[in-house]
């Protein structure tokens, strides 16, 4: 279980996250929704130790992230929003690095990579550098790395961006299968249909504030006859709009019940 307690992050005067409180249960698929700059990536990067919070606490399976960083990192595999990392490495070299980092045995690595690279149609490209890949192929390489680690918690920042329809379909199936094994999947997205299709629970953020935390069904029940897209847009409003809408306030009440 992941507990986020009073998590805040500021950059100078700018508040990116304000006193965020969340609980993500084991085995669920949890989605972060929000406009650009809402705080989704900041929350995710804090969870994966890239960003140090200004205040607050993250507790994973009873361990405080600040004091058990190395142990917790082994439980997590992260797929960043832009897959432009380790570009000078070949796909095989990248996977080797991941295998060493997560201490995966050679035989297990080879067996899993054979299966995954076939699934993502990467077998023919494993000795090519990531720099020579398209966005989608880089994304696939990193996804394979994350699946290779087979972590308890899988965290993906905008994972479907740049993937071809087949790969996107496969990835969604994998996320579901991962959760079905009792493991946790956390992802951020702008695609509401995906959130509706996959998420057990979601958090809607706006300018660092939590607007809603709960299940998709509860959210839909709050406005009968409306689609998730309509509800979300009413709640989050236009990007420059700071004023809470009547609907926002109503939903905040529901989420706090």
């Amino acid at each position, binding site marked *: 279980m992941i507990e986020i307690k009073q998590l805040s992050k500021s950059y100078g005067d700018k508040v990116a996250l304000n006193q965020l409180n969340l609980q993500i249960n084991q085995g669920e698929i949890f989605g972060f929704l929000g406009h650009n700059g809402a705080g989704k990536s900041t929350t995710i990067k804090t969870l994966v130790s890239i960003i140090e919070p200004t205040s607050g606490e993250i507790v994973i399976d009873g361990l405080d992230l600040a004091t058990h960083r*190395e142990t917790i990192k082994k439980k997590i595999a992260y797929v960043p929003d832009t897959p432009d990392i380790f570009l000078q490495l070949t796909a095989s070299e990248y996977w*080797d690095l991941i295998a060493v980092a997560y201490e995966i045995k050679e035989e297990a690595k080879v067996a899993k990579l054979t299966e995954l690279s076939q699934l993502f149609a990467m077998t023919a490209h494993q000795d090519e550098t990531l720099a020579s890949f398209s966005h989608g192929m880089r994304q696939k390489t990193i996804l394979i790395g994350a699946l290779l680690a087979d972590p308890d918690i899988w965290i993906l920042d905008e994972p479907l961006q740049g993937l071809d329809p087949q790969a996107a379909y496969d990835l969604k199936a994998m996320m579901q299968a991962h959760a079905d094994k009792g493991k946790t999947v956390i992802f951020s997205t702008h695609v509401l249909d995906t959130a509706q299709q996959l998420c057990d629970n979601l958090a809607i953020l706006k300018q660092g504030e939590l607007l809603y935390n709960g299940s998709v069904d509860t959210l839909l029940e709050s406005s009968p006859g409306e689609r998730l897209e309509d509800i979300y847009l009413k709640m989050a409003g236009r990007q420059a709009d700071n004023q809470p809408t009547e609907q926002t306030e109503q939903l905040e009440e529901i989420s706090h019940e």
Partner: protein
Amino acid sequence: MNKQHITALTAVNLRYANPQVTDKLRKKGKKGKKLTQSLANQFLFSGLIFLGIYGVTMVLMDFSKMPGFFTYYVALFSLLAFSQGISVIYNVFFESQDLQAYLSLPFRQTEIFLAKSLVVAITILPFVFPMLVVFLLTGFRSGVFLPVTIVISLLLFILILAIVFSLSSLVVFGLTRTKFFHEHKKVVTSLLLVISMVLTVLGIIFMSNQNTQSGLNQLDRVPIHFLLPIYRIASAPLSKTGLVALVSLLAFFLALLLVIKGLILPHLYDQLTSASMAKGESRRLHKTGQNLSQLLRMYNLQLVKDPNLLMQVIASSFLMPVVFIVSFALGGSVKLNHIDPHLIGVVFGVGLALATMTTNATSFISLLISLDQENFNFIQSLPISMSNYLRTKFRLGFAMQLLLSGSLALVGGLVFRLPVIFIVALLLGNSWGTYLLSHRYFARDYRLLLLEWTNVAQLFTRGAGNKGLVFNMFGSLLGSTIVLVLYGIGSMSTYYKLVNLVAVFVLLIGSGLWLRYYQKKFWQTFQ
């Protein structure tokens, strides 16, 4: 620390240190451990070559009887290591664009930084190898048992570098911890640049002026007293004074480690994650009504205005040649206020030679296209002339290079008290040489284009890598010296008119052919 983690991380960083050599080796079918081994061998091999070159250059100096020169070289190369150390540590810890990619993986921070520092350090080592050669030669000439000399020299070399890098890290981590750094990142980075440069240059000037001959040995300099214990370690390691000095040096290093452990390490993670987010000023005044040339010039200026880039480029393309010229070309003070007027052509030639030293693979002109990163591909899609775009870049790069190289030539002319007309000749030679070489290095940047770099130092070692850099510096120094000495002898002979006529002819024809070549092979391809 996990040995497997460090090995894997080092292997990754070795590939990053010289992407083009890595690509070449990959094309030869090398991969995995064999590729890593070949890359490590490249460094080892070039290290041995450097040791050989320095050894041959310095073998005639009997350091066992020259404690003054011994301490002078130790100070000179320690200063160079200090300024490079500041640059490297700042870069590895605060400017690496790939730090975030590592942070989420289950590696310890110490493992990530150790591997990164290790690889960057071995790229710097060849430039401070002369110090190791001095230690080896001193022990050898003092009659110390050879295996003891080798062990002690290596130990001393590592110990001194460790001390210098520890001091550099104290400066970097001290400054970057201040609140001022988070609010004014660019100012603090510039401050680091200034501190390291000023200290090094002042140190070199100070030492070069301390050239009073000692009474004991007319050929030696006055020793730098606080460095004499190091001389004792190298010349008589097993004597009582040698051993005491060695133990004291070790104790000093351990004390520094304790300071780092107590003051730096406990806050390192917070410092690094918050520093990577300290972006500094992100707003700029918008100037309206600018034409395309002005906009492109402004864009290119923004590319090179990064203080970290300035720090690295100036340290590599400017400071290194200065140290090399000072250490290998000049033994003492030279005053040229009564120089023979017949030598004006030679002084022009010195200007040209200086340009070959300062305009190299690490200069601004050699990086400007690659600095575009992904913008370069995007710009090609815009309806603007690529030729104009590149010419704007070239003009800026040449101007910056001219400013650096010209300043060095001017200071050199003034320090050596050249008459005004000779300073003008020196500056003209330097400007012309810089112009010619700018074409070469600009075209080279395009030929070896690397847009996916994560640390600007990766651009420095493209092509022939570190070997190429040092060979270029040595080659330029040796080649120019031979040509200039011959030209000088000719200019002082009765045939000086004919000699100068030939020199002018060679320069004009050579320059014409040179420019025509780059016009045809580079510039015309964009029209």
